[in-house]
């Protein structure tokens, strides 16, 4: 068995090493190398596609209910508005912030923000009504510094700048480009009820009658692939296909 002994050092060597240790201590006390963000005085810079609080724009909503259908946590309920349209409400007690609703929103009515720190008094308050989703929620901002993690050659560093982050993403990151378009798969079974034409928000479906024959047409260029007509077709003969 070998015993580990203190290496033999000269007095000068010892002095140099002690000085170096004191130097590190002084440096850490003046400019600490910590990875902790001092929230709420500091706020971490979130990426633009951060999945936070969800905003809603009723002007862009096409009433397709897709957000409510796709929500895996059943957090979205549709409520009837005074204008007879149905708009989403989100129960943040259930929401898992997957943002499937935002990804599936074909009208672009739902929008992500970087807000992740909304406080509620109780569970009931977490049910966010449509009106409350239009404007960003009130949150108390105490942050003076914006912190960004940076990895340099040696270490992880915190880059701190004296600015306030805009938590509302002005320009959303481009959605995944899968262009879908509505198509009739059993044209002979069409009853010609024009329900598809009535519900189409983009005016892509048109019809004309001449000599006892109704001609239905889907304009593949203007069709946004929202799927409203697919849902409403009473014969279920419409489907979405890749453009």
């Amino acid at each position, binding site marked *: 068995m070998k015993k580990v002994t203190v290496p033999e050092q000269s007095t000068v060597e010892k002095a140099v090493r002690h000085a170096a240790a004191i130097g590190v201590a002084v440096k850490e006390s003046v400019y600490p190398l910590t990875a902790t963000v001092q929230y709420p005085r500091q706020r971490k810079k979130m990426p633009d596609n951060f999945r936070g609080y969800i905003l809603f724009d009723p002007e862009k909503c096409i009433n397709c209910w897709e957000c409510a259908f796709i929500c895996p946590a059943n957090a979205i309920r549709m409520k009837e508005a005074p204008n007879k349209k149905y708009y989403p409400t989100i129960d943040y007690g259930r929401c898992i912030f997957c943002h499937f609703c935002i990804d599936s929103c074909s009208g672009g009515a739902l929008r992500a923000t970087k807000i992740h720190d909304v406080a509620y008094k109780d569970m009931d308050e977490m049910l966010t009504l449509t009106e409350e989703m239009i404007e960003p929620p009130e949150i108390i901002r105490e942050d003076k510094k914006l912190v960004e993690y940076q990895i340099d050659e040696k270490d992880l560093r915190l880059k701190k700048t004296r600015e306030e982050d805009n938590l509302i993403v002005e320009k959303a990151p481009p959605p995944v480009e899968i262009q879908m378009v509505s198509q009739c798969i059993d044209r002979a079974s069409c009853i010609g*009820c024009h329900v598809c034409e009535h519900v189409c928000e983009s005016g892509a479906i048109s019809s004309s009658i001449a000599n006892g024959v109704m*001609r239905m047409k889907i304009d593949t260029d203007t069709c946004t692939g929202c799927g409203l007509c697919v849902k409403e077709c009473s014969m279920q003969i419409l489907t979405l296909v890749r453009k």
Partner: protein
Amino acid sequence: MKMVTESEWEVNVPDKQLKDKVYFENLKSVVIDTEMCSRCLTCAAICPGGITVVNNKVDFPDYETKCLDCGACVRVCPRFVYEPKSGLGDYIEFTAGRSKRFAGQDGAMVTEFIVSAMEMGLIDRGLFAGRDENWATEMFHVRDSEQLTITTLGGTKYTFADVLPELKKAVMFTKSGVGVIGTPCIVSGIRKLQQEFPIFREKVKLVVGLFCTENFHYDDISNFLKAKGVDFSKLVKTDITKGKFISTMTDGKVKFKVTEAEDIVASGCNVCTDFTAVESDASCGSVGSAKGFSTVVVRTEVAKKVIEFIRAKGHADFGDADPAQLDFLIGHKKKRAENIKR
């Protein structure tokens, strides 16, 4: 992935008799108001708006504003352009059967037909008219023969069932096909749907018709039976045999002549000449065979395959049936052609 091909198509628009009115008003004036309507509900099945039944009559509340004016109801209504059918039709086989597996009215051959077709893989569901404790009909999608342990699914109800609106749902759900049971008017409605819309041609694989002289609206027959002293909570079976309406209860029977119920026969039945459901794949009924057996008239190859399957598996006993015994009722219904005023 399906490629986008043509995105234009054409739909034939039927002619209107009342030019400036919506199609439902046309249907109403030609069929419903003239008491020609059989209440088969083919129109309600296809209507994307709101054709429904109000006070025993097919109606569309607020049709002036809500009718989409597509003309589908007029296209599928078997009585809008009425071609009365009667007789036995061209049949391949005329026989009598008694199911060994099921209990129903007489030989329970209708149930046997649908279940065997399901076992053959021809269809994946059959539509049965069940009933609640007050003998009001409700539709069931039967996907497994075990479901038929619900005894209320078998047996005749003598009141209208909403078969066709349910058939449309079944057609939307089904993967391989649907089997359906119906009175002659319902069978005509199905054939009309199949003629107009390919989706029904593809999905409705087996149509079993029932021998039918007339049918009653639920309110009418239930009030009538209650007046005769029938207690619905004890009622187990209703049957019309040799001109007598027999209500079998757990503690006895109430019998009266069918002619007594003449006044409450649904108006559409007065112009119906079809007794055997001529347009069906196979039709069944008690007339023409011995007690405990059902007469089976096989008309198409599909039904022939099913009956051969039943024979091969030994699911039913077969006996003799006499077409001549049906002549009286066929003739009786044929006379109703006089009531058609057009």
